[in-house]
């Protein structure tokens, strides 16, 4: 790229930013420019209803503009924009605190995997439905006995000629009780080596033989479920990628999931409390300094960590644009979720007994949310591959250490 090209790109991007700003100003309803609550998050799906009329209008305008998935190809309903433009949209939305009109792991995880591994018919059938919010997806990876050892999964799909017969169970299926379809890793060859007998299947949850029950967590929420498959017939055309080669699809999808989890907190529906603001509210100061030296020190550690993590996110983006490969993306899930846990512990320490309210009188919304997020933060260093698994991945893929 010459210097002239670069500067014209910068100019184009600046013009694009102005256009985005104007469009948001004209189209984002006032009510959609406030922090969202968990109840107001719209995930779409067959049975979904919008939390408000404004939310519906906002979603429809956004969808028609092609910005639900701005970087996906236009032929499937995406915006066909560059990563830089996608980033500009995010930044400008953040600047006016515009709500995300549609959430879902169809957008975050399945879509990118289908674009990479799906056949034309699968892309035609599913991508637009994801973008249009017509189908809400669940993820079927983990199993009760497999945990971090994902490849040990047992849920099996037998080849019955014109269809697969699926039997088994999936756990940690996020919001599966509200979902329409589920993408699953299933064992299609029990005799092959662990990772070589796995396939990637798309399953309609309306099919007979599927039941789902929620699991209550220590945070008091039950966003995860267990899903059971009892002689479920799945058409052959729902196989993504080659038979027994599902592991490569799974890995690509996990990269998206981990990237997403490393960005956790950036789009949280809960009231996000910033530690150094909480410090001003809850701690005593002497001569302009937090009187408790230990807490002051912990707060600096956290602020420095978050600065470094946020900056490294930005660097991974810069590197992607510049076509530079580095190990940075692979460390982000670990550092992002660990930092989030560190933040939760720090907030509890800063708030003292005021941070221990579970519900009801005596505690404000931010305090209760802080405690609930603290309890949730434990799930984040486990789900999507535990921190220990993340370190294994770095040891293997970045450092190329010998595998025992």
């Amino acid at each position, binding site marked *: 790229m010459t210097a002239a090209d670069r500067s014209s790109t910068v100019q184009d991007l600046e013009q694009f930013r102005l256009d985005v700003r104007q469009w948001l100003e004209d189209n984002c309803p006032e009510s959609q420019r406030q922090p969202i609550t968990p109840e107001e998050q719209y995930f779409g799906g067959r049975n979904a209803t919008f939390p408000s009329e404004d939310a519906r209008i906002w979603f429809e305008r956004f969808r028609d503009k092609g910005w639900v998935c701005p970087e996906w190809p236009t032929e499937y309903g995406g915006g066909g924009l560059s990563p830089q433009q996608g980033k500009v949209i995010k930044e400008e939305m953040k600047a006016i605190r515009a709500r995300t009109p549609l959430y879902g792991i169809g957008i975050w995880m399945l879509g990118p995997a289908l674009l990479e591994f799906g056949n034309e018919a699968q892309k035609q059938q599913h991508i637009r439905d994801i973008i249009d919010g017509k189908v809400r997806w669940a993820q079927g990876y983990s199993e009760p006995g497999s945990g971090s050892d994902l490849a040990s999964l047992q849920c099996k799909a037998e080849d019955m000629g014109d269809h697969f017969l699926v039997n088994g169970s999936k756990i940690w299926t996020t919001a599966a009780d509200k979902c329409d379809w589920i993408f699953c890793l299933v064992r299609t060859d029990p005799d092959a080596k662990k990772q070589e007998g796995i396939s990637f299947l798309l399953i309609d949850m309306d099919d007979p033989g599927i039941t789902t029950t929620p699991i209550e967590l220590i945070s008091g929420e039950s966003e995860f479920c267990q899903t059971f498959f009892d002689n479920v017939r799945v058409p052959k055309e729902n196989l993504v990628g080659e038979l027994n080669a599902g592991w490569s699809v799974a890995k690509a999808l996990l990269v998206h999931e981990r990237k997403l989890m490393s960005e956790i907190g950036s789009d949280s529906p809960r009231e996000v409390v910033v530690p150094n603001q909480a410090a001003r509210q809850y701690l005593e100061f002497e001569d302009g300094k937090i009187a408790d030296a230990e807490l002051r020190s912990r707060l*600096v550690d956290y602020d420095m960590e978050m600065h470094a993590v946020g*900056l490294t996110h930005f660097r991974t983006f810069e590197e992607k644009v510049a076509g530079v490969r580095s190990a940075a993306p692979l460390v982000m899930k670990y*550092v992002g979720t660990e930092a989030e846990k560190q933040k939760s512990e720090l907030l509890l320490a800063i708030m003292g007994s005021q941070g221990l309210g579970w519900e009801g009188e005596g505690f404000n919304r931010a305090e209760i949310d802080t405690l609930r997020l603290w309890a949730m933060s434990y799930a984040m260093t486990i789900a999507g591959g535990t921190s220990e698994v993340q370190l294994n991945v*770095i040891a293997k893929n970045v450092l190329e250490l*010998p595998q*025992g």
Partner: protein
Amino acid sequence: MALVLNEEQQFLQDTAREFLKTNAPVEALRTLRDERNKTGYDSALWQQMAELGWASIILPEEYGGLDFGFLGLGVVMEEAGRTLTASPLFASAVVGASAILLGGTPSQKETLLPAIAAGETTLALALEEHNRHKPHSIATTAETTDDGYVLNGRKTFVLDGHSANQILVVARSAGDTGDSAGLSLFLVSGDAPGIQRQRTLMADSRNAANITLDNVAVGPEALVGEAGQGWSVLEPVLDRGRVAMAAEMMGIALECFERTVAYLKEREQFGALIGSFQALQHRAAFMQTQLELARSVVLQALSAVDETPEQLPLLASLAKARLNDLAQLVTNEAVQMHGGIGVTDEMEIGFFLKRARVAMQVFGDTSFHKDRYATLCGY
């Protein structure tokens, strides 16, 4: 803000790595140490480095500089960290040159900067008076006389102070010890009457002199910046030094880490390569996460020098604190993972450990910078 090196900087990095690996590997530092080399660095090597433009890398072209900015400097510092190259690059080309560039009179700039750029003149900053970094706790006095000033005091930890041609002395012309107001900077010839330079040999086999100033008389032209306003020059100079030292520590950590990972892949114990043990894999992988975070903060701090100097105090403290911690983590783990051989003098890992300890004290340890960062954030 640039978080990815451009082509020019990458080219500079390749050149620097190749040159230093060939001409100034860790083995060269060992030789300097064993020979008790008087200068503490190889003068001929320094001349070559100057010819490559490294002594003037941050200087504008009008003073014979390369004008590569701090990102360019950072690349060279990092490579010098990898090879533990002893040279006046930090003391003279970064700290000394920055002081003259930011605070010097036109005449000081015209005479000194081209000489620094050519590697003919070296500078050293005589700041510290305590065993820990306290940049405005200065008891050294500068009394006004009819002909200029008279300096009295004791300085310690003056990097390359025994060999520098010119000493940049921080002295108090007004105010109480501990005030940032009332400080002044003076350029004093290394062999001026009344100066006593005691060479030290530090853990890293390099030099940081103790200097005594006993009625050292200097003319008014020796003043760098305004009398009593030295802090406004000194603070950005220190921050530039912190950022440059952080870049060197990035190199120290990277090299030490890579050598350790290589060792994990070749050393067998209990009938297996030790790198296959999960206990060691996790510690190595954790270091990788910290290296990635450190990389980002160093790049941002280097960019800030040239692009957003108003953010430099915060970013310099962030970079120095994080890199202090990283250098400590990586060098400690490196020695431990090398096992018995790691504590032998024969193994070069120990040289990284010792250099890291010195670098960690230069212009502020972690607790100094955490305190400063918190204060800058208003808590």
